[in-house]
């Protein structure tokens, strides 16, 4: 019986190992271009709906991208750059809602609902397991036998 777990542990080892290699590789120095792209992807294009300034090629988006680059090169932090944009356009220039205050609800509610749903699932399984011991009559066994033989 122990043999059955051998391939599975080997698999687990391979999966964890390769994910660890991939994870360790990703955390290098952040380049200017990488930071600009990351910030731009979370800033809404002011003249077009639904796109970020990283995706949009409108004039306003290009201006904002250039400005982000200038500020990154000038040594401003990501937070400072976002705060500047909010001070000019308002909060809705950011595509990622803040995690605090009212807008924090959009992050918290799914987690709360998810936890409740999972809890409900566990309770449902527990409850149905409590109602076990279904009595089989001889008729049932005969029926099952017939069905098996008919296959």
């Amino acid at each position: 019986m122990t043999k059955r777990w051998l391939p599975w542990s080997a698999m687990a080892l391979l999966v964890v190992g390769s994910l660890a290699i991939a994870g360790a590789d990703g955390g290098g120095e952040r380049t200017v271009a990488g930071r600009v792209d990351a910030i731009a992807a979370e800033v809404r294009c002011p003249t077009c709906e639904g796109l970020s300034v990283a995706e949009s090629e409108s004039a306003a988006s290009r201006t904002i991208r250039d400005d982000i680059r200038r500020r990154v090169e000038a040594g401003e932090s990501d937070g400072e750059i976002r705060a500047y944009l909010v001070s000019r356009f308002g909060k809705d220039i950011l595509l990622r809602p803040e995690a605090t205050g009212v807008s924090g609800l959009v992050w918290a509610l799914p987690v709360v609902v998810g936890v409740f749903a999972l809890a409900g699932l566990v309770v449902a399984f527990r409850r149905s397991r409590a109602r076990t011991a279904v009595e089989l009559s001889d008729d049932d066994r005969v029926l099952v036998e017939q069905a098996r033989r008919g296959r």
Partner: protein
Amino acid sequence: MTATVPPTGRRRGHTARWVAVAVGLIIALFVGVLATRSPAIDTEADTPLLGRQAPPIEGPGLDGGTVRLADHRGKFVLINFFNSWCVPCREEHPELVKFAARHAATGDAVVLGVIRDDTPDEVRRYRTEHGGDWPVVDDPRGVVALDYGVRGQPETFIVAPDGTIVARYISRITADGVDETLRRYRGSGA
């Protein structure tokens, strides 16, 4: 045949009803919120810049020289972001002309145009056709628009004599509407 499960008792008797009531209430609230929303298209718009110092404007003027917002300190300034190809800008233009003429004598308010997404040549042609003699600044890189958080055009900001922003419009303005805003601002004793 499948064996039956003994009834689970009265414990779950009304679950469906209560869940239905709860879900119904949530949806009623939801519908209420949706029903009371106004369409996203709005004219008078909020901006984080209200009540704050207007970001400086300095750049090449359409008619040569340098245009500076700071030169107009002590007057109301109507900063108007516009271009030659936007239809509402065209429709708004006569109102700007009317406003500028009204205040030319008293000298208490001026218009300052900022070109948005257009070339100076096009705008010059547009001005000969439609009139207007107020200073216009070119903004080829869109940095002034960025400083003011401009989203579309036309868009207009009113700057008070002390340099603070007192109003923002994200669609067409009328001369009377702007004068009304100015009166209100003066009346509030600021």
